[in-house]
């Protein structure tokens, strides 16, 4: 089956920043992404879990974005502006996609 090279960017970020991130991505011309829930985690700022949250302040989500390789830098620049001062991580991996006309 015919597949096409792409990049998969996964951004784990605080839920309060989600809309700001996707807004910036949209401005940068990225229109496809998916948001996945996150139950908990641990990092430099300590461990947290959804259970321990009375507010959404501490919750995080994962925003996944599959894009053409040549658009990667635009996306990273945009994402970086939002993620910069906030906790969270950005990882990029290679992948292939079916139906490239969709990207």
């Amino acid at each position: 089956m015919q597949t096409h090279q792409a990049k998969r960017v996964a951004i784990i970020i605080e839920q309060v920043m989600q809309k700001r991130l996707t807004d910036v991505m949209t401005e940068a011309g990225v229109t496809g992404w998916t948001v996945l829930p996150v139950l908990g985690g641990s990092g430099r700022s300590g461990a947290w879990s959804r259970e321990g949250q009375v507010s959404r302040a501490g919750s995080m989500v994962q925003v996944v974005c599959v894009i053409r390789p040549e658009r990667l830098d635009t996306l990273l620049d945009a994402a970086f502006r939002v993620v910069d001062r906030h906790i969270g991580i950005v990882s990029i991996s290679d992948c292939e996609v079916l139906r490239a006309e969709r990207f």
Partner: protein
Amino acid sequence: MDQILSLAATNLLSPIILSFALGVAAALARSDLNIPEAVAKGMSIYLLFAIGFKGGVSVADHGIDAKLASSLLAGIFLSAVLPLIAFALLQVMSNLSRLDAAAVAAHYGSISIVTFVAATSVLESGGIVAEGYMVAVAAAMEAPAILSALWLISRGGADARHMDPDLMREIMLNGSIVLLVGSFAIGWITGAEGLARIESFIVSPFQGVLCLFLLDMGLVAGRGLRGGSAVLKPGVLAFGVVMPLVGASLGLVTGMLLGLSVGGVALFMVLSASASYIAVPAAMRVALPEANPSIYLTLSLGVTFPFNLTLGIPIYVSVASALAGG
């Protein structure tokens, strides 16, 4: 003093406080008891809707009061001023950074609606009535403190993310303000007749739902204490008990100047004494991401909330009865 003690004893042995204690104990013992996030959120929506609605109905019953507007303004003023006091206190009592101190201060200017709800239930069981529009005052006091705290930071020259319009809208239209004000309006419009239709939903089971909700709050507070107590130095800890008393005193004066009823004065004290742990933390994560959430969440939820719930409310109600009950 006797009255305080007896009220405190009754309060401490009520199902709602014991449920809270059960939650704290379970969390400290690392039990896996937990209430699903969606259920806890559902209960808080129920409580906000019920308390707002009943407030509105009470206003519809007793007619509009000339003091409504002045109470709202006083609430907004208090919410804006309390952070400045809290900030000054923190500078003296603790060695938190300006950033952390400002973030904490924002929480103490704003309010905790569950503390408010618990206080109304203490008033009710004591047969003390309060102005129905105090729920509107509660809603009005949620946001101004955030603006004060951000002003404190920008004045200090720190590079606070500037209050963007999105954040402003998020703060002013956050879910609990909208629900409280909205249900208050619905209660006001539909009045006693509306209440009759949904009374067996929002009045009868109220205390029971509050028990389970406080069980969850206890679990969350206990987990917070387990993880976060390390960050709380003695000075900060002391602030978590002193600040509510300072806030309550200001609330007392304000309530008496406004000429509110005993219940109204007590609720003003409770609002001023309580600290936010929902709306303000979310705003701080956006506006002051470098401030340490462990500090403000543990302090507000693990120290001040339990203090107000157990000792604070009886004190405030007794003092209000003694001074304003003349």
